[in-house]
């Protein structure tokens, strides 16, 4: 009896591990791997191992939270419980952008592979076909069973290792000197993308049954498997000439051609299709369910939460996700900025890992009595360190491809602003009694709306200018100006407000906020700097910040008569 129980535990563990591995292995990972190998040679294996180890540490916190809140809304729940609804919804929306980025990258990557394998076929047709199939499958409710998904994941790993072995046997591994530390950090940051999706096993595992204790071990097995598989592929890629590898949109096919010619190309094409099947559909499925849930939370319009009466699927959410993924994929294919969604996706994944570590730390302090069937073997300080490392990696990821840094920062900025605005609006809708503490009480209603619309126009103009001159902007200066306004003007007051538990705080904090968020102050500041040095496009960070605050969040100036942060005020 005991033997049967232990063998069923082993089956469940294997199933979950294969499921998690299959979710992370995607066709869009291979161009990223190829770029890493072109930059660092065989040392890419070290970057993969480092990213895998960091993902494992993050997975411990993820498993702890999943054991506390089984079958819940993932990161939305964890961060929401730890830091409030606003943070939870904002991160959920950002995470949604990550899935869209992954979907766009995956559709484009597989289209490139198929167009290479079958010359003459247009990539756009493959993209449309792939997304069309995913939409139909999701609308009619066809879901790949967990067992089949796990079997596909296992086959994929074996196929990739075999193909890599074949390529390695066909050539000599060139010796490569250790790259510079900055190059290795950038490679490690990018390599985080390779592990994206392994954590989705938390929700996908429900079909498998009771999984609270098996999940942490399954994620460990999955991360080891992924590290070994990517490592094998990276070593095999090091055999091919770096120039050929990094210039190819389908580097796995280059690998296939090295060891098997036409047959090798067909085998690696099959592996790519398999990789997309195990990750893409799960991504669209997960994203549409998240959109549905967010629509039910009134983050998105209620019409998005409609359910098909026959198929019982959230049809509007599926179509909305498919439309955004299609638009992004065609944009990526048309502009040739193939690495942009990967860079952005890796950065958001790093931020999500950091948020999960911080949420676990916070909930240990605020909700210590809640049962934790699994507890991460790390203390609170380790959680802080993990968060700091992942936030640094998020920055490194954006800067890892210098030509994409501007586009990456703008995209991330747009995602952050949208996520903040949507979460702010949702919380306001949910709590109509909440009065705005940052707008004079005498001005409200249509006057406030009109003022925000005017600021929105100014914001759009500033963003358009920044986009048009993205190549001329010194991005470190831009980021420093954008973030500096809040570091000096907002954070001190927010910390004081929290410490005072919503009570009265010194007027100095209101002065700091109102001064650093006033247009005349910045006009004077910019004029003074321009006199000393020269005006530059990075100054656009200031109007984007100020008008973004006003238009998207309704934050004009803070009245001393009201609490520093929005608070419950009787109407």
């Amino acid at each position, binding site marked *: 009896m005991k033997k049967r129980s232990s063998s069923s535990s082993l089956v469940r563990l294997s199933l979950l591990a294969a499921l998690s591995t299959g979710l992370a292995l995607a066709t869009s990972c291979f161009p990223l791997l190829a770029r890493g190998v072109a930059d660092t040679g065989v040392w890419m294996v070290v970057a993969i191992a480092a990213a895998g180890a960091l993902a494992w540490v993050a997975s411990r916190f993820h498993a702890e939270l999943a054991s506390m*809140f089984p079958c819940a809304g993932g990161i939305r729940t964890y961060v929401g419980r730890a830091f409030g609804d606003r943070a*939870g919804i904002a991160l959920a929306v950002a995470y949604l952008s990550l899935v869209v980025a992954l979907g766009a990258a995956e559709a484009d990557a597989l289209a490139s592979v198929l167009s290479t394998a079958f010359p003459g076929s247009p990539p756009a047709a493959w993209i449309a076909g792939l997304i069309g199939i995913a939409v139909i499958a999701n609308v009619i409710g066809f879901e790949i069973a967990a067992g089949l998904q796990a079997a596909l994941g296992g086959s994929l790993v074996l196929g990739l290792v075999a193909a890599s072995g074949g390529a390695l046997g066909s050539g000599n591994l060139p010796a490569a000197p250790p790259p510079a530390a900055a190059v290795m950090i950038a490679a490690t940051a990018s390599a985080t993308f390779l592990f994206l999706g392994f954590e989705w096993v938390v929700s996908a595992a429900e079909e498998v049954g009771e999984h609270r204790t098996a999940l942490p071990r399954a994620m460990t097995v999955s991360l080891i498997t992924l590290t070994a598989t990517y490592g094998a592929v990276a070593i095999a890629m090091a055999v091919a000439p770096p120039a050929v590898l990094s210039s190819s949109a389908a580097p796995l096919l280059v690998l296939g051609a090295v060891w098997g010619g036409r047959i090798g190309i067909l085998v690696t094409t099959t592996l790519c299709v398999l990789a997309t099947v195990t990750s893409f559909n799960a991504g669209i499925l997960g994203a549409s369910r998240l959109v549905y849930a967010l629509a039910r939370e009134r983050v998105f319009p209620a019409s998005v939460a409609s359910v098909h009466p026959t198929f019982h*699927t959230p049809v509007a959410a599926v179509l909305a996700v498919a439309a955004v993924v299609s638009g992004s994929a065609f944009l990526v294919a048309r502009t040739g900025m193939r690495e942009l969604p990967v860079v952005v996706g890796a950065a958001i994944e790093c931020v999500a890992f950091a948020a999960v570590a911080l949420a676990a730390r916070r909930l240990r302090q605020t909700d210590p009595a809640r049962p934790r069937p699994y507890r991460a073997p790390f203390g609170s300080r380790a959680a802080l360190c993990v968060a700091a490392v992942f936030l640094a990696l998020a920055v490194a990821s954006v800067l890892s491809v210098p030509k994409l840094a501007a586009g990456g920062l703008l995209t991330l900025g747009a995602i952050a602003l949208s996520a903040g605005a949507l979460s702010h609006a949702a919380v306001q809708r949910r709590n109509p009694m909440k009065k705005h503490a940052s707008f004079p009480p005498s001005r409200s209603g249509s006057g406030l709306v009109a003022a925000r619309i005017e600021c929105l126009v100014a914001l759009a103009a500033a963003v358009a200018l920044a986009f048009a001159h993205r190549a001329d902007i010194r991005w470190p200066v831009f980021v420093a100006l954008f973030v500096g306004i809040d570091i000096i003007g907002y954070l001190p007051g927010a910390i004081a407000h929290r410490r005072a538990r919503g009570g009265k705080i010194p007027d100095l904090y209101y002065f700091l906020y109102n001064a650093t968020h006033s247009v005349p102050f910045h006009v004077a500041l910019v004029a003074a700097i321009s006199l000393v040095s020269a005006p530059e496009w990075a100054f656009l960070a200031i109007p984007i910040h100020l008008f973004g605050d006003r238009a998207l969040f309704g934050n004009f100036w803070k009245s001393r008569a009201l609490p520093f942060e929005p608070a419950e005020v009787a109407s």
Partner: protein
Amino acid sequence: MTLDIALTDFMTRASASRPVKSLLARWAREVEIRPAGGPPRFLRSAGGALDGPSRESSGAPDVVVEADERVLLAVFRGETSPARAHLDGDLAVYGTEKDRIVLDALVLLIWGA
């Protein structure tokens, strides 16, 4: 109000709703409502109609809804959206993604929240 009364009221409203009947037409499931520390209740759906609540299962339930009795009461009385309770981590639903959506849609159709 007890959970049994709330569930009975919920079933009455469900039986009177045409969109609910349409949604349930192809959804034959047994749902276990499991309040923390209390006895489970079972609802059954077949042929567009809901049956229950009963204290005994007819077999292995397809979907399990688990929460504090207070949360379950609020959900089945239409005071709390199940989607919200689920995302807040107060309500766990064990079952396929599709079944969870149907359950949520049922409450949406009955209570409009």
